[in-house]
C-alpha cells in the first residue's frame, strides 16, 4: 500500500499490540502459525475482533465476533469511520500532517450512519460503535485480512476501506500498529515483489515509467514492452475474444482453481497451444500440448521466497527431484536458448544477485546475509541495513518524508451474484486447516481431520429446505450444479452456506462460483455466489444451467 504491496508490520508486533481486527480471515485454520502470534497477543491482553460471515475457529477466540453479511465490508468500515469522526476520535494531527483527500472521505462516510450499517451488514449498531471506539482509542492496533476481503468483485475498494481506517486513526507506520494482508500461498508476496504482476518490474518499479524501464533495458540489453500486461482474468477475457491463443502456465491449476469452472475449461480447451510446467500432472496439465515436469520449488531447488511480513527467506534443495523433472530456472533458460537467447546456466544465487542489482529494496540481501539473519524484511537497500520491521515510519516524521498517504473514498456495493427467490442462499468459500487450494499437494498425505467435501449450512436452513445433516443434496447456482453432502454447522447463520475448493475431482465447487472480477486486481468473487439447495429424495426441478 502507498506504492509498495506488502504488509506493514511484523508478526512479532501482533504479540505486542492492543487491538487486533481479523477482517475476512480465518487465520486459525489458514495461517495457523501467524495465529500463534495473535494468541500471544490475546494472552497478553490484546482485544481481538473477528469480522467474518461465519463464526470460524478464529472468531471463537475473539472478544467479539462481527457476523457480517457477505460483501458488506465497506458499509461496516465506513460506518466505523463515521462513528470515529463523530466521537472526536480521529487522529486529526496525523491526518493533517501525513494524509490527503480527507475531506472527500469524510463526506462519503457521512452517508453511513450506524443504523444503515446495521441494516446492510447484519452487525448490531452498538457492536460497530464499540469496535470503532476500541480501535480508535487503542495505543497500538492491527488490521489483518485475507481472501474474505480480496476475493470480491470490488476487492481493491475493500482494501482501501481498511487502509482508510488506519489513516483515520494513525494506526500505521508505528511499532505495533499496521495493516497486514496475510498471503495465501508461500510466495504470493515474492511473486509480486519480483514483478509477476502485469504492471510492475521487480521491486514494484512501474513498467510504464520510462526511467525505470530504461534501467532494466540497459541491464538486459533488450526492449521492455512499455505497456502493462494482462492479469489472469483479463487473459481469460482475451481468450474469449481470440486475442490470446497460447498460454504458458507455471505452477498453477486454473482448470480447477478458476471461478466459473465450465467457462475456464471451455476457454483453456480452445487454446491453440497450452504449455504447463508443474510438479504434477494436474487437470490443467492433462489439457496441455506440452508438459514440462518441474522440480518442487520448496525442497528440490535453491532460491528464495517472501512471506507475509516481507521476509525474504532461503529455500534449499533437500531432495533430488524425480527423473526428468528439472529446476524452474533451468527450464526457463532452456526455453530462452531455443528462442535464440543464451542466458547461460545461472545458479539461483546468480539470478538473485541480478535482482539485487536492479531492485533497490532487495540490494542489501546477499545469500550470506539471508543465511546469517534467518531472512531479511524488505526494504533492505544496502548490506549494512538490518531490514525493515515495519513500513511507512516516514508518515510520522515532521514534516512527512515523501508523498502523503491519500484517503480513498469508497462506496458499498453488493456482490454481483444477487440473491433471489430462486437462489436465496449466499455461498461463500474458504479453506480448512489440513487442506490447501485444489488439494493437489494436500491430497498426498493422510490427514485424520479430512472428511471430503460437504456443504455447510445452518441447521435452520436444513429444516427450511428439507435437507438432513449428512444427506446428499443438489446445490445449484446460475452457472451450474453439484451434488454434495450436507453438514449442519453452527458456524453458519441462516442464509449462509460454506464450501471449500479442496476436492475438485469429487465436488467441483467452482462450477457454482462466479467469475465477476475486480477490474484492478483481477480477483474473482469466490466469496459470494447465490445458490439454492434441493434434496435429492424428491424429484427436483430442472436446474438452471
Amino acid at each position, binding site marked *: 500500500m502507498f506504492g509498495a504491496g506488502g504488509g506493514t508490520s511484523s508478526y512479532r508486533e501482533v504479540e505486542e499490540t492492543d487491538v487486533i481486527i481479523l477482517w475476512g480471515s480465518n487465520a486459525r485454520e489458514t495461517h495457523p502459525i501467524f495465529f500463534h502470534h495473535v494468541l500471544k497477543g490475546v494472552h497478553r491482553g490484546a482485544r481481538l475482533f473477528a469480522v467474518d460471515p461465519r463464526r470460524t475457529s478464529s472468531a471463537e477466540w475473539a472478544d467479539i465476533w462481527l457476523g457480517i453479511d457477505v460483501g458488506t465490508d465497506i458499509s461496516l468500515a465506513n460506518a466505523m469511520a463515521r462513528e470515529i469522526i463523530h466521537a472526536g476520535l480521529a487522529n486529526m494531527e496525523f491526518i493533517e500532517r501525513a494524509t490527503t483527500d480527507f475531506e472527500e472521505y469524510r463526506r462519503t462516510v457521512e452517508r453511513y450512519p450506524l443504523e444503515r450499517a446495521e441494516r446492510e451488514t447484519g452487525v448490531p449498531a452498538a457492536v460497530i460503535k464499540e469496535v470503532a471506539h476500541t480501535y480508535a482509542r487503542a495505543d497500538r492496533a492491527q488490521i489483518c485480512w485475507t481472501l474474505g476481503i480480496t476475493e470480491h468483485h470490488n476487492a481493491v475498494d475493500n482494501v482501501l476501506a481498511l487502509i482508510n481506517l488506519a489513516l483515520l486513526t494513525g494506526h500505521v507506520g508505528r511499532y505495533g500498529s499496521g495493516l497486514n494482508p496475510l498471503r*495465501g500461498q508461500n510466495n504470493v508476496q515474492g511473486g509480486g515483489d519480483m514483478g509477476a504482476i502485469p504492471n510492475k518490474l521487480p521491486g514494484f518499479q512501474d513498467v510504464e515509467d520510462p526511467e525505470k524501464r530504461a534501467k532494466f533495458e540497459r541491464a538486459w540489453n533488450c526492449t521492455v514492452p512499455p505497456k502493462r500486461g494482462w492479469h489472469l482474468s483479463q487473459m481469460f477475457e482475451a481468450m474469449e475474444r481470440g486475442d490470446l491463443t497460447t498460454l504458458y502456465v507455471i505452477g498453477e491449476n486454473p482448470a480447477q482453481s478458476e471461478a466459473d469452472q465450465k467457462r475456464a475449461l471451455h476457454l483453456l480447451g480452445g487454446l491453440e497451444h497450452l504449455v504447463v510446467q508443474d510438479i504434477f*500432472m494436474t487437470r490443467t496439465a492433462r489439457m496441455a500440448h506440452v508438459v514440462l515436469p518441474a522440480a518442487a520449488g*520448496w525442497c528440490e531447488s535453491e532460491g528464495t521466497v517472501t512471506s507475509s511480513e516481507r521476509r525474504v*527467506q532461503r529455500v534449499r534443495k533437500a*531432495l533430488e527431484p524425480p527423473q526428468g523433472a528439472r529446476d524452474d530456472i533451468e527450464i526457463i533458460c532452456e526455453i530462452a536458448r531455443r528462442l535464440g537467447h543464451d542466458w547461460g546456466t545461472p545458479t539461483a544465487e546468480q539470478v538473485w544477485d541480478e535482482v539485487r542489482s536492479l531492485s533497490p529494496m532487495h540490494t542489501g540481501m546477499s545469500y550470506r546475509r539471508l543465511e546469517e539473519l534467518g531472512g531479511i524484511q524488505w526494504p533492505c537497500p544496502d548490506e549494512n541495513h538490518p531490514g525493515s520491521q515495519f513500513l511507512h515510519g516516514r508518515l510520522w516524521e515532521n514534516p512527512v518524508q515523501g508523498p502523503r498517504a491519500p484517503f480513498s473514498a469508497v462506496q458499498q456495493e453488493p456482490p454481483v451474484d444477487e440473491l433471489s427467490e430462486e437462489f436465496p442462499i449466499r455461498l461463500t468459500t474458504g479453506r480448512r486447516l489440513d487442506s*490447501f487450494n485444489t488439494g493437489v499437494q494436500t*491430497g498426498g498425505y493422510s490427514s*485424520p*481431520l479430512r472428511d471430503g467435501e460437504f456443504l455447510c449450512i445452518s441447521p435452520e436452513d436444513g429444516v427450511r429446505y428439507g435437507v438432513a445433516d449428512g444427506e446428499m443434496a443438489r446445490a445449484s447456482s446460475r452457472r451450474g450444479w453439484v451434488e454434495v453432502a450436507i453438514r449442519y454447522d453452527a458456524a453458519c447463520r441462516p442464509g449462509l452456506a460454506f464450501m471449500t475448493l479442496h476436492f475438485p475431482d469429487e465436488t467441483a465447487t467452482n462450477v457454482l462460483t462466479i467469475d465477476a472480477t475486480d477490474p484492478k486486481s483481477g480477483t474473482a468473487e469466490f466469496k459470494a455466489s447465490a445458490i439454492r439447495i434441493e434434496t435429492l429424495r424428491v424429484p427436483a426441478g430442472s436446474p438452471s444451467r
Partner: protein
Amino acid sequence: MSTVLSRATARMVPLQIDGDELQVPEGSTILQACRGRGLDTPTLCYLETLTPVNVCRVCVVEVEGSRVLVPACSRKVEPGMKVKTDSERVRHSRRMVLEFLASSVDLSLTGPAVKGWMDQYGVQPERYGPAAATQAGERDRAHAGHHHPPDPSHAATVRQPVKIDNELYVRDYSKCILCFKCVEACGADAQNTFAITVAGRGFDARISTEFAVGLPQSACVYCGNCIGVCPTGALMFKSEYDMRQAATWDESRQQVTSTICGYCGVGCTLDLHVQDNTIVKVTSPLDHDVTRGHLCIKGRFGFQFVQNREPDSGRPRNPRP
C-alpha cells in the same frame, strides 16, 4: 526490538555461584546465570520456548537460606543470592530423580546428554530390581485409590503398549517422563488446542486425551508441536516409528536441510530430515522468530506429495481412508 532494549537497560544483579561472584541482568533465572558461566546444568522439563513448570526437579540447586532445593530453570536471581550447583545435596537429589526415571521409564531414545548425566551422578537404576510385569492398557484403567501394595523386589514401570491410532504420529508412553512439555505446546504456550493434559495422580499420572479417547476422537489438530518438544521419543512421527520397527532408521545417514514451507504465506522454516532421498521427519528451529519451533499439520506432515508423485495418474496417490 523491545526485548533487546529492555535487556540493554536491565539492572544487573550481583550473586554468587559456587563461590564465584558475578552479575547478571535482573529477571534472569539461576539456570541462565549458570549456563552463562558454562556450568552444565541438567534439565528435562525445561525448554526456552515454554513456560517453566518445575516438574522434573533435575535442575535443582542449593540456595543459602532456602530450606528446600530450588529449581534453577524458574527461580529468578536475587541480589546477594548464594547458589551451590554441585553440593552433595544437589548431587544426591539429581541422582535420585534420574534413578527413579531410569528405573521406571524407557529412556533408550532420550538424548546423549541424559546418559552423560546418569554417569556423572552415579545413577544405578538396576538397584530397584527387574522391571515389574504390567498388563496391556493397565495404566489407562488405573483409578485413584485402587492400588495393591507394590512388589518390593521389582521396579514399578510405566510400561504400556504403543498407541497407534492415526497415520501421522504415535504415542509410546512407556517412554514418557511426564515433563509436561507436550501439554504446554498443545496448550497456552503455542497451539492453544488443549487436546491433552495430565490425568491421574502420583505414579498413575499420565498424559491423556479427554477420557483417554484415541486421537481421531480427541480435540487434536495434528500440528505435531507435541512431537517437536518431546525429549524422550515418546511422541514420534509414524514414519520414524515404522522405520525403527523395520530397523531402517539410521540418523547417521540422514541430512537436515532448512527450507521454507510451501503452503501458506506465513513463511515457516522447515528442517527436513532426509534419509535415502526421502523426507522422514520435519522439525522447525526453536530460535526462529516466525515459528519458535512450532508448525501446523500441513507444514509438519504435508510433505508426502513430493515423494509419491505418480506422473501417469494425474494426481498424487490419495491415501484418504
